[in-house]
């Protein structure tokens, strides 16, 4: 099954980046970095790149894919110095990339996305039938199920990921860069992905794998390179590495990977959902008859494969999605059909899943984003009309200090911050008002170890203070590490509920996969 994939493109035996430097305004994103991937005896390699947010991983790989030009340094392919001027050139050379932020056109179908930028076999006419056929073939071979005729915006994140991989396979990339491909996948999906990657490695593909999850890196890679602040810390064989060692290299200090969860007395009931239903964006039932209780001082984790209603659940509770049935009670008050602003006043806080889209206004400053909800409240506004910048900046400065947010200042547009730091701003904002109930959706997706550790500690602190927390995550480790109780969602329903202690992980996985 493997040989048919190699369609005669020059195989890349070896790729070597030497002394690479890349500056951005005010940032040395990549500083004198050497990096290489090589095949041996027809077998490829998985070379993992590790590093905190902003370490320069994506930038280094974008240089390889022709999205940026290096300021210094050389790239050699099979010993030949090569200038990669644009993605077009990279693609021609057999380099593919799956981006951290997916590079898909939402309004186009899967097949159209894959056909994009490729020569059509029918000349000036699209050959979607052929693309479709080939996609079916590939998706069968690699167990990557997607319907080629569905527009991409209708796909859940995990499915979009599959489209990206299919596209790379379709284009027969000899060297494939995967920038945080697992950030959005469930454990089962990660296993599937690793099977694909392993198969590709057998076929002689070279793979660069970026992830924040150390156990994944240790599982799949042959070699590991750690970056910190744009510089290479070390490159080592995966066999000799340990999680603790890697974490320390990345962060530059010892890290705690397991948390204490001191017992907290469960308080009164804060949130009650009774028979709640809602539609998904596609107009299909997204949430069906969901019942849920949340008590003060507990973290309830919601596990499930992406696209099983977690998104709708969070939005419904936050007042951002109309319900089609059932009641929601917050602190004893019926809040069904109440607006987001109203719920917020009653002490609900929400960390949204898509932080760049829902959580912040990109062009606003850090300070302005800090008062997204509370801009009309004292002390941030006088008389509800005039903004008090002194107070806003002071509050933002406090948050920056308390949450160790890396930013040039409070008046920096938030889009200039790294993802982890933006997430910290959101967390700081939501926690600053001492919420009674906190909905945290994917709070550490794409966030580095240091920041993840920090966010987890904060959530546990909140729990200790008596906040009721609903944690929605596709990262099972996170759920297991933080939760007091665990819910499992499948096809819009809550299909299982269990206390954290003594949980059977295999049983949990089966529930997530829809087993009765």
């Amino acid at each position, binding site marked *: 099954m493997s040989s048919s994939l190699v369609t005669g493109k020059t195989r890349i035996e070896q790729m070597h980046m030497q002394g690479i430097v890349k*500056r*951005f*305004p*005010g*940032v*040395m994103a990549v*500083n004198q970095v050497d990096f290489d991937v090589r095949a041996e005896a027809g077998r490829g390699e998985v070379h993992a790149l590790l590093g905190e947010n*902003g370490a320069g991983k994506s930038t280094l790989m974008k240089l390889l894919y022709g999205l940026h030009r290096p300021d210094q340094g050389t790239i050699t392919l099979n010993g030949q110095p090569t200038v990669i001027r644009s993605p077009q050139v990279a693609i021609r050379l057999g380099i593919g990339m799956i981006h951290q932020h997916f590079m898909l056109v939402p309004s186009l179908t899967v097949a159209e996305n894959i056909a994009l930028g490729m020569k059509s076999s029918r000349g000036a006419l699209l050959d979607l039938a052929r693309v479709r056929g080939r996609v079916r073939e590939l998706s069968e071979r690699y167990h990557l199920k997607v319907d080629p005729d569905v527009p991409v915006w209708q796909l859940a994140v995990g499915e979009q990921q599959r489209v990206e991989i299919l596209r790379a396979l379709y284009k027969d990339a000899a060297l494939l860069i995967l920038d945080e491909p697992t950030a959005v996948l469930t454990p089962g999906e990660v296993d599937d992905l690793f099977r694909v990657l392993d198969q590709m490695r057998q076929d002689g593909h070279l793979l660069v794998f970026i992830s924040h999850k150390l156990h994944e890196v240790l599982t799949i890679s042959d070699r590991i390179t750690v970056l910190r*602040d*744009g*510089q290479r810390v070390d490159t080592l064989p995966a066999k000799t590495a340990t999680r603790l060692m890697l974490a320390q290299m990345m962060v530059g200090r010892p890290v705690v990977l397991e948390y204490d969860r001191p017992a907290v007395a469960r308080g009164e009931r804060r949130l009650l959902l009774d028979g709640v239903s809602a539609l998904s964006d596609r107009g299909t039932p997204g949430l069906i008859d969901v019942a849920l209780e949340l008590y003060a001082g507990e973290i309830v984790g919601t596990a499930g494969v992406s696209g099983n209603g977690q998104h709708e659940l969070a939005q419904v509770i*936050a*007042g*951002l999605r109309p319900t089609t049935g059932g009641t929601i009670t917050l602190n004893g008050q019926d809040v069904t059909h109440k*607006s*987001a*602003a*109203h719920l*917020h006043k009653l002490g609900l806080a*929400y960390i*949204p899943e898509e932080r760049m*889209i*829902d*959580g*912040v*206004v*990109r*062009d*606003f*400053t850090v*300070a*302005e984003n800090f008062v*997204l*909800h509370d*801009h*009309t409240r004292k002390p941030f*506004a006088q008389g*509800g*009309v*005039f*903004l008090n*910048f*002194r107070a*806003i*900046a002071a509050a*933002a*400065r406090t948050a*920056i*200090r308390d949450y*160790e*947010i*890396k*930013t*040039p*200042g*409070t*008046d920096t547009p938030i889009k200039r911050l790294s993802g982890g730091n933006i997430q910290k701003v959101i967390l700081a904002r939501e926690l600053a008002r001492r919420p009674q109930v906190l909905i945290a959706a994917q709070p550490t997706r794409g966030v580095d170890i240091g920041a993840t550790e920090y966010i987890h500690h904060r959530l546990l602190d909140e729990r200790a203070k008596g906040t009721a927390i609903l944690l929605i995550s596709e990262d099972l480790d996170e759920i297991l590490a933080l939760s007091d109780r665990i819910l499992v969602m499948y096809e819009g329903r809550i299909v299982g509920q269990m206390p954290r202690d003594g949980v059977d992980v295999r049983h949990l996985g089966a529930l997530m996969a829809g087993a009765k």
Partner: protein
Amino acid sequence: MRLACTVNRPSVRAFFLRVTDNFPYGVAFAAAFAAASVLLVALSASPFAAIGAMAQGAFGSENATAETLVKATPILFVAVGICIAFRGGVTNIGGEGQMIMGALASVTVALAMPTAPGPITVTLSLMAGLVAGGLYGGLAGLLKAYFSVNEILSTIMLNQVAVQIMNFLLNGPLLDPTEIGTNAIAKTARIAESAELPRLSLPLPGGIADMFGTAELFGRTRLHWGLLLAVVLAVVTYVLLWRTTIGYRIRAVGQNERAARYAGISIPRNVILSMLLAGGFAGLGGAVQVLGLQYRLQTDGSPTGFTANAGFNGIVAALFGGLNPLGAIPASAFFGGLLVGAQKMQRDLGIPASLITAINGLIVMFVVSAQYFVRRRLKRRAFAPSEPVEAPSALTHTPAPAEGNP
């Protein structure tokens, strides 16, 4: 032209950089001038005489300067409104129609109360202009917010509708009673003198007065209080957009609807509000044209006959001003000068009006292209010296006080 508002500590260097940053605009003018010269020479006119006439016509005398500012006034009103609309994510192309509706309402009010004390009439007439323009703009906002009717389409169409409403009213109910039975052009009666927005002049202190040979600046020109009103409005709007919760919400909706919704900010309400304000300001611009300049409303059947294209020029001025109401002030003055100066060029040198229109187009294109080079310079400068840079940290940098700057 974009106001560089981000410099916190003014210094000689910063000032110098700001001057050199605008260097490409100088080049753009030179290039536009060169391109225009080709045309001028082809028509056997001297390019230097032409630019001289232009400058003289725009700022060469007290009267020329006043005319430039008179021209700039309605442009500024519209531009300030456009800053709100565009910041709020609404592309308002309806300045023309909104001006007309404002003018119609204000002239109606002014004519309805011929004997009332001046300040009352003026205030009520201005209010009427504000409200009528606002409602007309708000209509497009409403259509967008609740019926998903694209505002570019609706405002373009509503401009034409407004003209026809004006034609109808001026030929009928609002027609000057002394004109009934004549064939004169359709216009309203003249408003009472007490209803006029006063002319604006600056008393000059003795020494300077001697220098200019006149005791007050702009004393014998058409400059009127509308200019002051527009500038005040620009400042107020700046405060509104960047210092108040209202502006905060409008900008949040304009830049990220989903985040705004998540923050509990109502999208339809803010879309309509930005259109109400944008339309209202354009309407005020129309009212000011009537009360301060023309003293009546008249139609030749076209929108431009009354608005002089201010509804469109206001968009360009707002964009040139970086969608900042304060930036719109110099941008509007620049446009006023361009339009008034160009007319002088025609009068003095007999250059055809069409060439002047074409040259104005060239200047707009060249100047807007120059922004590319300005941005590139700014970006280059943002690159730190070549040594490796520490990741910026909150601990090493004392955050500057938050500035409500764009």
